[in-house]
């Protein structure tokens, strides 16, 4: 699996298998009012299972609830 995105420019969002979205590159996280959320690291994990206790960031809770999701796009129902 490659994660060598161009760090200096575009932001990339990578869904990890059964885990969070990892965000790399040039990005900011803002709430709906436009306030920037503090980010202390170059790569962050955004909650994908909805059960993190520090949303929007991941805290590993997906492992406790058996969250499952592929890294790629899920097939349309019926496909």
């Amino acid at each position, binding site marked *: *699996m*490659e994660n*060598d995105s161009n760090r200096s420019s575009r932001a990339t969002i990578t869904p990890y298998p059964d885990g969070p979205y990892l965000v790399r590159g040039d990005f900011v996280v803002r709430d709906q009012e436009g306030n920037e959320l503090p980010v202390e690291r170059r790569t962050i994990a955004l909650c994908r299972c909805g059960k993190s206790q520090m949303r929007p960031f*991941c*805290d590993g809770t997906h*492992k*406790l609830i058996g969250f499952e999701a592929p890294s790629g796009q899920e097939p349309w129902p019926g496909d």
Partner: protein
Amino acid sequence: MAGRLITLPAPRGPLSERLFEALEGEPDSGLEAPPVVESSDPIADEDLQLALYVAYELHYTAIDGVDERWEWAPTLVAFRAALERPFEEAVAELVQPANEEELASVGAALQRIVAEDPGPPLSRYMETQGTLEQMHEHVVHRSAYQLKEADPHSWAIPRLSPVPKAALLEVQADEYGGGDSKRMHSVLFAKTMAALRLDPTYGHYLDRLPGVTLATVNLISSFGMHRRRRGALVGHLAGFEMTSSIPNRRYGNALRRLGLGREATHFYDEHVEADAVHENIAAWDLAGGLAADEPAVAADILFGARALLQVEARWATLLMDAWQRGESSLRSPLAVATA
């Protein structure tokens, strides 16, 4: 902060006695490796684990009164190899071999392996009922590794192909503070120790640490010292990161319940967020990337993760059992000013 410097601990038997005596003299003399090191339980053998720990420490730190040339003295390397053999065999006995299905997707296999953690619920116990004295002991045990957190896994860097190497560096850069030494995890741990009125000097509590605690660190160093174990070293890191965020939230909660503030909890809170990132990179990009580039070491990646969980389980059991008996889990109890 000055460079690391430890003093030789007190020997715990003939092996450590022989080693420490030689280390106080000129390299490369006075140290003869035993042909075979006999031990009924190498993982918990006080003498063997302490001797091995100090032999490895030559690569990490200065030792007061010890000539730095001992690090690569041939007799030291031979002596260390004699200690490593029974330890490696004992760890291998605890680890079930990987099957074909696991080898087909190392990332998915790691997820299943860590979900079946064989250890007792130490972090849950600490969160709900651990005492301040027990928290002190826990931190002292962990200081054997956390004051050099990330260093042993860095031995893997020159041994990896580009994809897993980039992944490892992505994790390690964050472990080392992302360019800010104040955020370095080992520095945050020292801050936690100071907040708990413990001595954060590297190696300060070595004499109090049981052999099993030293074995948890010797395990990583043993993988790190041998290029042939690069798979196990990567698997150990993946397993470590994948079993970190949830327990560390609990340890942070334990400290908050005991009335401690941000100075003490920062290390743990930082790990909740950091390792929620690291565990994915470590499992899929690092371990999965290494397995894709070097299928021959895929089985050893899973070995490293399973070995971590097994040795950690023995360590956690030691703590829980001692506390259940109402005793200290250290070789000698701490006297910490709590006023």
